[in-house]
């Protein structure tokens, strides 16, 4: 029973997409432009992409970004999953306020999170003798990744039949064995989704990284930012295009996974009802 959209609606929709994606489209097109000009098209080239990979500062930034994103996503997935399991075992009176607190960092302005983490690290660093760097950057990323994992795992735990854990223990498992053999496989789709979302968030992040990485460590988005301030090179277009495409791919993966899982759940429900 899908409503047919009117022509006016379609035009409106097209305009919105135009406004949203026109800048990115221009960026992508000009990343293949021969001349340095950002106004004139002079011919197709891959040169800027080639230059990217020979630029050591960019490659270093890329390694940092990948290292931070992968480690942060993995750690946040483990911590977030355990937290979600713990939360689900709590009584509702405690669970709801804790979940709300969990949601605040997601909504909070990134700059506030960034500045406050920066202050905290500088403060602690003066006692414990450490400087801003890869370590603080990683901790910051883990911190803002965890809520996304919790948000993704929690619904899976709720969907799970309450009796499954009881059944496993009834059949001879300790609680931990039951958790490993029954609960983990059951909530796995949520865990994987949470990990991909966390990874995407980390790759994507600029503001929080900017405040917590210190002066010697640089992520890809930070590199782009500093490049725009020095000289204007079409390399920026190329690297931004790559970043955009990789985040886009990750988002598509998340969406496809989620809709598949929903379809599967519906199918299962339909089967159960029919029998």
């Amino acid at each position, binding site marked *: 029973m899908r409503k047919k959209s009117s022509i006016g609606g379609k035009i409106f929709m097209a305009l919105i997409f135009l406004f949203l994606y026109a800048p990115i489209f221009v960026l992508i097109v000009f990343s293949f432009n021969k001349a340095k000009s950002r106004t004139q098209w002079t011919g197709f080239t891959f040169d800027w992409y080639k230059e990217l990979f020979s630029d050591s500062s960019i490659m270093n930034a890329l390694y940092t970004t990948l290292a931070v994103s992968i480690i942060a996503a993995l750690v946040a997935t483990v911590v977030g999953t355990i937290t979600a399991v713990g939360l689900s075992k709590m009584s509702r009176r405690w669970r709801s306020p804790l979940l709300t607190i969990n949601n605040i960092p997601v909504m909070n302005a990134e700059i506030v999170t960034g500045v406050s983490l920066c202050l905290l690290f500088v403060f602690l660093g003066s006692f414990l003798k450490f400087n801003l760097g890869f370590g603080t950057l990683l901790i910051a990323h883990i911190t803002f990744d965890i809520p996304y994992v919790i948000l993704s795992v929690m619904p899976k735990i709720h969907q799970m039949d309450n009796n499954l854990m009881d059944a496993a223990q009834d*059949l001879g498992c300790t609680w931990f064995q039951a958790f490993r053999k029954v609960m983990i496989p059951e909530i796995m789709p949520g865990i994987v989704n949470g990990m991909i979302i966390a990874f995407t968030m980390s790759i994507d992040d600029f503001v929080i990284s900017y405040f917590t990485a210190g002066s010697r460590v640089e992520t890809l988005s930070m590199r782009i930012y500093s490049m725009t301030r020095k000289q204007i090179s079409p390399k920026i277009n190329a690297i931004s295009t790559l970043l955009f495409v990789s985040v886009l791919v990750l988002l598509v993966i998340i969406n496809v996974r989620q809709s598949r899982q929903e379809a599967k759940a519906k199918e299962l429900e339909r089967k159960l009802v029919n029998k």
Partner: protein
Amino acid sequence: MSKELIRLSNCTMAFDGEIVLDNINIYFNDKEFLTLLGPSGCGKTTMLRIIGGFLKPTSGDVLFDGVRINDVPPHKRTVNTVFQKYALFPHLNVFENIAFGLRIARPDGKKIKEEEIRERVLEMLEVVSLKGFEKRSVSSLSGGQQQRVAIARALVNRPKVLLLDEPLGALDLRLRKDMQNELKRIQQAMDITFIYVTHDQEEALTMSDTIVVMDKGVIQQVGTPEQIYNEPKNAFVADFIGESNIVDGNMICDGEVEIFGKRFKCLDGGFEPNEPVDVVIRPEDVDIVPLKEGMLTGLVTNITFKGVHYDIIVDFKGFKWLIQTTDYCPIGSKIGIKIDPDGIHVMKKSKYSGMFGDYSSYSAEYDEISDVDYTAEDEQTEEEWHED
């Protein structure tokens, strides 16, 4: 004969100060089919979960073979459970679901050999009539088949006791009847104790060796199905098990009771002279006779065709009875009734007196509607307990 296996002694269970089981004292014999029967919230599921080890009683002891097991966790008990909605593991196929308990490393570190696992699982599949289903995914099975897998999964561990928590609740009527016979057959074949929880009195009567009737966290009566049906202890039991007309009476002396000012012969005794009592008369024990021969006369106010018999509602001086008869009696006709002495059962007065056994508000539809409500509500309450 059979020996005592499980005993609950002075068991009380409270959730947030609300008492769900009130000082329960009961024992279960070995190799028995035992049913805990009662309406929603009567504490039957709680009792089952205490035996399974999922709940610890607030006070009192649980004894297994004479040993106190209050603090023994579920995975160390020789008891297995068939859960309400089967709780099969969706990520495993039928074979792996049944083999699950066998694959868990034992406390002594020994693992069961793959060969033996295979043998035992296939043997179990045969017991529950699911030969050839081992490769199927559990979500491709019908409700009845899932039920059988759940039973096999529990029995393959060779428990001393199988606990069943309303296992037939989700099945349709026809399948339920088949499964009732099937369960009884399996229990006899395995020769172990079954403790079965249900709110369905017919299910309880069909399958059980012993029935425990519960209400409001208190055991109302323990007995064989015949005892429970023929000699209910109070108005609650009489009403919950089958249909019954319950009227106030006066025990004149042993073997004679007065109802509506008339004296009836009965088989009960042991009451004080003139003690006020509750009298149960089952609808099928009332004979319709010509007016002149009737011990009582009443007015037919309603008649419903039920297939084998008619349900008729008869008004005796403002008190309405349900009578089951094969004779057609038109509405508005006057009839006489006769009750044989063995059709009358006298009970002591209890707190349930006057609450049940009056058919004044009876109508066929009402009966059905209230039944449906009852099941839905029942499930909800049980769910809430699982949450806790």
